[in-house]
């Protein structure tokens, strides 16, 4: 399978991944606008604008007619609204392409802006914040809280879903305006993968010309402005023209405790990192962080220390790119490209009495990595692992399409990220990795978010820096207990005035 160049620009979609033998076709239409473009006070506008494409009626059919038409095809389409982009994706069986394509294309070409659809989606979105995010998964709440904490004051702070008060203030006219300004011919990338033919490729491309032309000046939200762009040029993604996200520097450890009565502890901590896909340091860090905490991988180090040896929780992972819905997926997501990423550690739910200990254990491992670097043996093993493991990042055509579209965002059209990733695993040296660790990772000046039912106790424990020994239900070997003596006293200094407590039921209110 090859990636074909998208020329000439006016006759073929931007990204084509033909797999002639494949019985299904994957579709993707990605707009360069996301939650960072929410105007202040209307956090959630991009989210509703995206949902109004994927889960609402069009000028040609009411939503129930769309459901009726999609149903026998066992196909649908969905939307991912993230910070930078809004991506409509779908997949259908080759037998059903002719019935599916009108439904899929009408979704972005001819939204109906039906008030009843809007009301339904807005109410669902508010529920998503008020009930699901705040209550249904403390781990997701903890991760969203960390992102808000790190990006406080920037347009990356609020979750892509918005805030409760922001969503309440969004109107249907706001959605129309968002579409008019952002969902334009020059701001879209169209992709097609699997068993499609040239006629279908041309048909999809034609829809691009049916999108509105770019508005002359576009308010990019939060004071960011871009000038007009030439609509005839192939779509270049908006990131380059968006102003950078500049989170406030973190000068000491800072803690946000989300007080949720009855909850166990779910911990996320991290800090912004200035590396992105394509840069050599990204791949060097990928090796280091995979060794430290590859997502859902039992061999990784944090997993070994916290779960495998001590049985404190279900898993412990580390990331250098956003990884939403981590509890539900084993492989990295697509369609969440960002211009500013976090280094992030996720310590899964554990008893409150173990929270301080687990935090110390994780920070200690991070500092040890920073101090000593990766050992040669671990470097060799991890890069060999990743070179093959990367095959699993995009097992399906739909996911390869997602990666290819993300490549456009990161300016990786020549050598795609996955290809480069595997090549870099062969060419990077231990020195490259350890230089990248020294340059980008640190074990202090962290932002730490915890959902907990014991906020006051944890505040006291963290601020005092008192030892946090833990008890095991069953005997542990001597060497583990000896190491525990070090962990329970490990310094993660937090000044009392650097600890904030917020009620979980107020999270993401505004």
């Amino acid at each position: 399978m090859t990636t074909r160049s998208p020329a000439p620009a006016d006759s073929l979609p931007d990204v084509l991944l033909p797999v002639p033998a494949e019985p299904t076709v994957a579709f993707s239409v990605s707009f360069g606008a996301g939650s960072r473009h929410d105007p202040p006070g209307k956090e959630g506008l991009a989210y509703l604008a995206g949902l109004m494409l994927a889960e609402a009626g069009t000028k040609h059919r009411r939503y129930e007619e769309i459901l009726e038409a999609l149903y026998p095809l066992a196909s649908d389409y969905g939307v991912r609204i993230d910070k930078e982009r809004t991506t409509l994706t779908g997949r259908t069986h080759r037998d059903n392409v002719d019935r599916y394509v009108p439904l899929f294309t009408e979704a972005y070409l001819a939204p109906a802006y039906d008030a009843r659809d809007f009301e339904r989606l807005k109410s669902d979105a508010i529920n998503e914040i008020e009930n699901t995010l705040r209550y249904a998964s403390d781990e997701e709440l903890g991760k969203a809280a960390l992102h808000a904490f790190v990006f406080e004051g920037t347009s990356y702070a609020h979750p892509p879903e918005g805030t409760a008060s922001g969503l309440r203030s969004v109107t249907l006219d706001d959605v129309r305006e968002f579409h008019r300004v952002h969902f334009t011919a020059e701001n879209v990338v169209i992709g097609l993968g699997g068993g499609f033919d040239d006629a279908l490729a041309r048909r999809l491309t034609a829809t691009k010309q049916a999108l509105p032309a770019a508005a002359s000046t576009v308010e990019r939200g939060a004071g960011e402005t871009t000038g007009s762009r030439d609509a005839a040029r192939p779509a270049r993604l908006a990131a380059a023209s968006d102003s950078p996200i500049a989170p406030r520097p973190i000068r000491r450890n800072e803690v946000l405790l989300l007080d949720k009565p009855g909850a166990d502890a779910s911990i996320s901590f991290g800090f912004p990192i200035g590396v992105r896909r394509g840069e050599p340091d990204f791949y060097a860090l990928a090796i280091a962080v995979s060794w430290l905490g590859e997502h859902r991988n039992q061999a990784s180090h944090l997993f070994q220390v916290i779960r495998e040896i001590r049985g404190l929780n279900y898993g412990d992972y580390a990331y250098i790119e956003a990884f939403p819905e981590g509890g539900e997926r084993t492989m990295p997501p697509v369609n969440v490209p960002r211009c500013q990423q976090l280094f992030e550690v996720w310590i899964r739910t554990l008893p409150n009495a173990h929270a301080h200990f687990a935090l110390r254990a994780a920070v200690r491992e991070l500092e040890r990595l920073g101090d000593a670097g990766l050992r040669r043996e671990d470097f060799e093993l991890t890069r060999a692992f990743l070179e093959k493991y990367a095959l699993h990042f995009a097992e399906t055509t739909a996911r390869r399409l997602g990666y290819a579209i993300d490549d456009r965002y990161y300016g990786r059209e020549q050598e795609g990220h996955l290809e480069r990733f595997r090549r870099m695993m062969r060419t990077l040296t231990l020195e490259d990795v350890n230089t990248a660790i020294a340059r980008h990772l640190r074990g202090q000046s962290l932002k730490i978010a915890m959902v907990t039912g014991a906020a006051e106790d944890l505040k006291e424990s963290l601020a005092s820096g008192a030892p946090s020994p833990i008890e095991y239900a069953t005997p542990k070997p001597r060497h583990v207990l000896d190491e525990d003596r070090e962990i329970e006293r490990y310094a993660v200094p937090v000044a009392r005035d650097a600890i904030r407590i917020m009620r979980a039921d107020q999270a993401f209110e505004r």
Partner: protein
Amino acid sequence: LCFNRETPGGPGHGTDVSGIIPYPTHLHSLPNGLKIVLMPMPGNGLVAYWTIVRTGSREEYEEGRTGFAHFFEHMMFRGTERYPSELYQRILTEIGADANAYTTDDLTAYHVSTAGEDLQRVIELESDRFRHLAYSPQDFETEAGAVYGEYRMSRMDPLFTLHEAIVENAFDVHPYGHTTMGYEADIAAMPGLYAYSRAFFARYYRPDNAILLIAGEIEPGRVLELVDRHYAAWQPGYVPPPVPAEPPQRGERRIDVEYDGRTLPTAWVAYKIDAFDPSNVRRVAADLLADLAFGPTSEAYRRLVLDEQAVEYLDAGASANRDPGLLEVQARIKEPAQIDRVLGVLDETVERYRSAPPDEGRLGAPKSRLKYEFLMGFETPDHAAQRLARHLAIGGGLDGLEALYAAYERVTPDDVQAAAAAYLAAERRTVGVLRGRA
């Protein structure tokens, strides 16, 4: 080599693709009872290697042992004498495999997605742990802590709380009455059950209770040779558990469930249905019934979700189980004041399907949907294996699956009504309503 071929077409001779499964399948069994399903298919260089143990929480019939099948799944990663867990993990790391496992009511599945060139090593590793699993009491106790952590995560989810209460009330004696996670008290007591864990392994982790499913870019003959070499000495001795039969339910059960947090109220109505059996027309028709009555094109959906917008989410499905299971309807309701009215609409819907057959013209859509839903699930070897695993576990082979899709095509409106009349009776159901804190 000594294989019993169960379907035409041995190694190197693909069976015809005439049924619902879009790739040729080769079915074999070893003299020790181990079944092997091979499915050559495109895989971008990847092979899915699944070991399906036909034991899940269904086999937890003993007092105080709920959650044990799932816990035991964790122990399967704790190594053997030859490949202690560190070495096992190291090899999987070296070959960049994506390996994991899951447990449900009727099965436990161990899956490895690997580059085809590493298949032989995977066969060595996997056969070794199924034959020679060995772990210390300390490892056993430590892993119990991780399982408790998993429970802590799950209980945050209001639907988990409601589901736990529904099955507990719906079943009097059958182990389907507890979730695969198990009761918290039993999870807390797990560290003391080391000896039981060895007995559990000896009873259920036997070749005559397991199926290997290998899909992707494979040479069936070569793979069979390797499987024979590594699994032939695995000793049979499966002990079928005395799973108690659930007596017929004789009256409606209603429960109110509190959730310690905020949530939209959720109604969950669970009707007792027959075990999965593609020759049981009524049971086959129940799959279409659930979709017709409560799916996204149903009148109930249109009314409750789209027009009145009283319900955020409405879904229904009939479980495919070895023993009689449940047809469940769930509705997340926007306002507590609307709960009774929504339950009323669900009841009206049930009554309509019980009293008259649906229009003939409405049956084509769910039949088409079932077919394409299945076909679109074969995107990768791993997806394909996932698609087949439950049916293999329930039926022990793929015949049931082929029979099922053929049977869907034959379902008539009268069959749907008969299924509704038989299953959707008030005395067969448990109605649960979950409410959160105000």
